């Protein structure tokens, strides 16, 4: 009995092991998400012969996980993907000017309150359906309710259908940032088929069907997103600039790999898996020597110190002025990016490149580096050692944390008691929404296209609720002619430097390396437009 | 020496290299085992009898622990000069050994049959199936009931006595000429002890196999051995036929040992005599005769120079004592 017993146990174990092992590994390869477009054939038709020796597949590294591919909800890295799948009525050219994309043209009524958008005809969705006004209206009304900045700008006015190819937007009062709002990259005002929009739950659409040059193929959570060329994409025939203009597709497949570890991304670039990668200061010298690699600087996020205007201390403007007085922006920026040519000083809350909205107003409050004045202001305000909580996170590349601890040092230097509250990203979001959990938050912000979209100017972010600020902000969006805009903009920025909802610290650059065999890659504020990109073998 | 000599150990010295320097548990031992003869080796524990036995098969680790001197003549070969390969062909084939504790001397994870087959296939070119059959025969030979079933069982399923029979079966696998039994019955209770000794005597008679029986039990020696060697502190102090030694022990140590054996007709009131003191440690060997510190008759001569092992004129017994002849008289006088 004994020997038989031993053999039976052994064979049972082996069978069990293989069963577990077998079933787990083979279903590892089937696509997880639905979303392969029903209309167009799954795999693209027989790939037509590459023009000359062009490669058909491009792999592109992403630095963070992609929580959603719904364009209306997409922020930071998932925008890299959604920008190439979806399009909006308008798109930014390289100077952040809104340029017609899905809309052929638009008329603005005399009183500047009613926009009429004329849609291009014969534009196809990835599922073969032609884009019509009903799709635009359904998409944009959903976009409006989901996005904070859109609600602040449009209030409760609605998009309505005039006819199959005309959409109208009636506003309560004139606003000059509508086109920018429709072009802005984050929470993009993308157009999706009506039935897809209506089927979407609160957690976003489930079918990723747009009108862009690439169509969605497969999304393997936390691993990769696979896009393929959309063969009957109707391109605008304007010259390509920024995210707008002509879009020709030379690639068959684009695979966005999710590689959170920066050292791994860089090593994969060196090993040839990727031909484009973001660089850290440390990787720089290793690529500068390579002949086939070009390194360039692209404008990244700007850094602002946001006050919690409901906190005991910083509800009093004197304390805000004291902090503004002590900040030494060079030291903070150097501490954040560790290299002088990766930042620049800039007193305005907008980038100089965005000519219409750039202003120098109030710049004398910028980068004061005046500890004595700060100490004096603190005394006047009656500071006696209350603890200031600095809220930050080490995630998102660590820059938030780097800037915060230099600010901490500068505050401690003038006798301010500080406490560092470092949490993970999810907790940060929660705490920042809670008025009595923090005092100061130093953050990096993706530069919006108009001041009205600046997060820290509206109540949900740092609790700014000042009548004058709101009034100036509204006046700015109502201004129509360039002169009116300039005057209103100067007034708003001047007042911002007095009210100090936030203190501008400076702009940062990020560096990237591109191999010479990858040509035609254009980025806007760091976000890549993969149309017109060629990759030789 | 009636029987023709099978094993002759001459001036064997076994050295152990320990933390506290070199010691020699076997310090110049000479003894013989004749063909078909059962020789007993007795002495208190720590006197080197087991070390001598294991030195015959060179079981100590010669790389890190032990080294040998002298000669172990077996037939024409000196076992101390054999290469490891040659030595292996002797062990279990020509000379086998059984040990004291049957519980831990068998491999717990192999069946009884496999452990016998292993010896068979080591020394004989024999098929697996045939070896298994032979193993069952060997188990029957050593008196184990239902040998077929037992062969498939594991050591922990057998009793102490049964396991010792298995050890003997393993030892007999290749009909060795000499069986060294290192205290085979010490760990067994009396009734089983008798059966094992009877088995050994029976095998000695039927197979003509010589036996070197190591024990500290004089009763066992009396019952089974024809000749006996008494060892003390790594040396032979007396050796001769069982009849002579039991009737007229010459060496004071032997006398002391004999007297400390309780007798059935013994006087129960008197305290049982014991040899005073205990065996000194190996690195504190007294000068002169090693037994002197515990010997009632020791004089200056004994304490200064060491007597040689020599035959006492008029007897067949060899003894290592300056006053061997006279001691019997002194004893009688008391």
């Amino acid at each position, binding site marked *: 009995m004994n020997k038989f017993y*031993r053999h*039976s*146990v*052994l064979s049972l*174990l082996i069978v069990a092991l293989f069963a577990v092992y077998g*079933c787990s*590994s*083979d*279903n*590892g*390869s089937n696509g997880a998400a639905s979303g392969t477009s029903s209309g167009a054939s799954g795999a693209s038709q027989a790939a037509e012969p590459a023009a000359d020796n062009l490669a058909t597949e491009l792999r592109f590294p992403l630095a963070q996980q992609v*929580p*959603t591919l719904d364009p209306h*909800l997409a922020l930071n890295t998932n925008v890299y993907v959604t920008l190439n799948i979806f399009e909006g009525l308008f798109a930014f050219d390289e100077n952040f000017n809104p340029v017609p994309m899905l809309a052929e043209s638009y008329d603005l009524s005399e009183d500047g309150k009613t926009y009429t958008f004329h849609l291009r005809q014969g534009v196809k969705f990835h599922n073969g359906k032609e884009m019509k006004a009903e799709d635009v209206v359904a998409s944009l009304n959903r976009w409006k*309710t*989901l996005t*904070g900045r859109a*609600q602040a700008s449009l209030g409760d006015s609605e998009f309505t259908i005039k006819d199959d190819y005309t959409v109208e937007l009636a506003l309560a009062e004139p606003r000059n940032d509508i086109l920018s709002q429709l072009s802005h990259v984050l*929470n993009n005002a993308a157009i999706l088929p009506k039935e897809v929009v209506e089927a979407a739950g*609160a*957690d976003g659409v489930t079918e990723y069907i747009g009108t862009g040059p690439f169509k969605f193929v497969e999304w393997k*959570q*936390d691993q990769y997103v696979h896009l393929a060329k959309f063969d009957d994409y109707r391109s605008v025939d304007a010259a390509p600039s920024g995210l707008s203009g002509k879009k020709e597709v030379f690639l068959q497949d684009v695979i966005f*790999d*999710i*590689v959170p*570890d920066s*050292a*791994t991304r860089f*090593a994969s670039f060196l*090993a040839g898996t990727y031909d484009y990668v973001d660089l850290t200061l440390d990787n720089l010298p290793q690529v500068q020597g390579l002949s086939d690699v070009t390194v360039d600087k692209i404008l990244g996020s700007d850094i602002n110190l946001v006050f919690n205007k409901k906190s005991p201390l910083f509800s009093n403007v004197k304390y805000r002025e004291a902090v503004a007085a002590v900040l030494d922006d060079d030291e903070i920026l150097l501490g954040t990016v560790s290299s002088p040519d990766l930042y620049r000083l800039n007193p305005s809350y907008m980038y100089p490149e965005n000519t219409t909205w750039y202003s120098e107003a109030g710049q004398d409050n910028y980068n004061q580096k005046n500890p004595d004045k700060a100490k004096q202001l603190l005394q006047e305000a009656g500071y006696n050692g209350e603890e200031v909580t600095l809220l930050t996170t080490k*995630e998102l590349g660590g820059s938030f944390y780097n800037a915060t601890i230099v600010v901490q040092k500068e505050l401690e230097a003038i006798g301010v008691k500080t406490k560092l509250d470092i*949490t993970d*990203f*999810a*907790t*940060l*979001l*929660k705490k*920042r929404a809670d008025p009595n959990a923090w005092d100061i938050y130093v953050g990096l912000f993706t530069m919006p296209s108009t001041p009205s979209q600046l997060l820290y100017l509206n109540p*949900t*972010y740092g609790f700014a609720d000042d009548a004058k600020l709101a009034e100036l902000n509204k006046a700015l969006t109502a201004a129509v002619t360039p002169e009116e805009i300039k005057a209103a903009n100067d007034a708003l920025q001047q007042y911002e430097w007095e009210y100090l909802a936030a203190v501008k610290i400076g702009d940062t650059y990020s560096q990237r390396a591109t191999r010479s065999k990858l040509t035609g890659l254009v980025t806007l504020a760091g976000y890549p437009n993969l149309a017109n990109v060629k990759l030789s073998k | 020496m009636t029987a023709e000599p099978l094993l002759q150990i001459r001036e064997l010295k076994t050295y152990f290299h320990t933390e506290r320097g070199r010691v020699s548990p076997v310090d110049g031992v000479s003894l013989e085992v004749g063909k078909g003869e059962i020789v007993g080796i007795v002495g208190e524990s720590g006197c080197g009898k087991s070390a001598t036995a294991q030195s015959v*098969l060179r*079981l100590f680790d010669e790389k890190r622990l032990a080294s040998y001197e002298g000669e172990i003549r077996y037939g024409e070969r000196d076992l101390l000069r054999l290469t490891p390969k040659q030595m292996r062909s002797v*062990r*279990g*084939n020509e000379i086998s*050994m059984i*040990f004291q504790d049957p519980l831990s*001397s*068998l*491999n*717990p*994870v*192999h069946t009884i049959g496999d452990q016998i087959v292993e*010896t068979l296939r080591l020394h004989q070119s024999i098929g697996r199936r045939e070896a298994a059959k032979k193993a069952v025969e060997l188990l029957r030979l050593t008196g184990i009931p239902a040998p077929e079933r037992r062969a498939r069982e*594991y050591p*922990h399923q057998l009793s102490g006595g049964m396991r010792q029979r298995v*050890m003997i079966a*393993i030892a007999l696998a290749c009909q060795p000429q000499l069986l060294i039994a290192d205290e085979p019955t010490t760990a067994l209770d009396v009734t089983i002890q008798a059966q094992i000794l009877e088995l050994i005597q029976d095998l000695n008679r039927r197979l003509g196999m010589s036996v070197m029986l190591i024990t500290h039990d004089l009763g066992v020696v009396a019952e089974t051995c024809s000749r006996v060697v008494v060892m003390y502190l790594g040396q032979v102090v007396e050796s001769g036929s069982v009849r002579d030694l039991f009737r007229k022990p010459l060496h004071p140590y032997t006398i002391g040992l004999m007297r400390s054996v309780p007798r059935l007709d013994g006087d129960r009131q008197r305290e049982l005599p014991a040899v005073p003191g205990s065996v000194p440690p190996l690195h504190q060997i007294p000068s002169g005769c090693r037994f002197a510190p515990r010997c009632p008759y020791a004089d200056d001569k004994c304490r200064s120079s060491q007597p040689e092992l020599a035959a006492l004129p008029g007897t067949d017994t060899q003894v290592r004592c300056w006053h061997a002849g006279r001691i019997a008289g002194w004893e009688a006088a008391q």
Partner: protein
Amino acid sequence: MAFYIARRLLATIPVLFVLSVIVFLIIYLIPGDPAAVMLGDGASPETIEALREQMGLNLPLLQQYGRWIGHALQGNLGDSLFMRQSVRAALAEHLGPTLSLAVLAELIAVVIALPLGIRAASRRGEAADKALTGFSLFGITVPGFVLSMFTVLLFSVQLKWLPVSGYKPLSAGLWTHLQYLILPALSLGIVQAALLARVVRSSMLDVLNESFVKTALAKGVGERGIVYRHVLHNSWLPILTVVGGSFGTLIAGAAVIESIFNIPGMGQLLVNSVQRRDYSVIQGVVLFVAFAYVLVNLVVDLLYAIVDPRVRLQ
């Protein structure tokens, strides 16, 4: 024997139940919620609230747990907001990489540790023994993730033999599958090899002192026979225990290596899910890892019975 297995599996139910309660409490304690993470800081509070409502996060904790345990008992571990699939499917998908990595790492560990341990035990004090002490100290002292930094530099960047990171399932061909796993498995395997080698050595040294080794020697068994047939066969018990334990930790604890080599295994799934507060997946991973661990221990116990006849499965 089947009864024994059934009893052991049933015994895990209370453990899993206790674990699920602990995880739910921890989830309740951690601030931040999946809705905010999914919608990002640009979204308006109303939309975040709507999503929380849809996910049932506003229900009292007890009711949430009741709903979860109700589903769990019928085998439905709920759906994941971020993974866009059922938790069970997500677990199955991430099991493959973890299992492959764990098996390969354990294989490397055994292939290195067994011969090294055996030689060190049989040649005590000589070169092999010293090498083992050195290697085992190296293995324990240098953490896997530090080791991986250098192996990637050498094999992937310099020599370009192996890909830097990523994962290909077995169905993409054995060699491609292995190519992606060699470096991470090496980083994990070497540490486990160090631990295992020490146990092999010490357990064999213990067995060498047993008297049946002397019997074997007296039977004329050669060195090889003694080491492998007699000593090694009796050392399997402690060795199996350590192999079981290390296989368990490889399943649960490879998160750092998985994130460095970007392997979509259980560790990475857990870290991502915790960071984005994907509650149902956290719960699923913890329970699965615990169950896998119990399974590994059960297999080890069964192997005990095979390896050592004295072990009875009561």
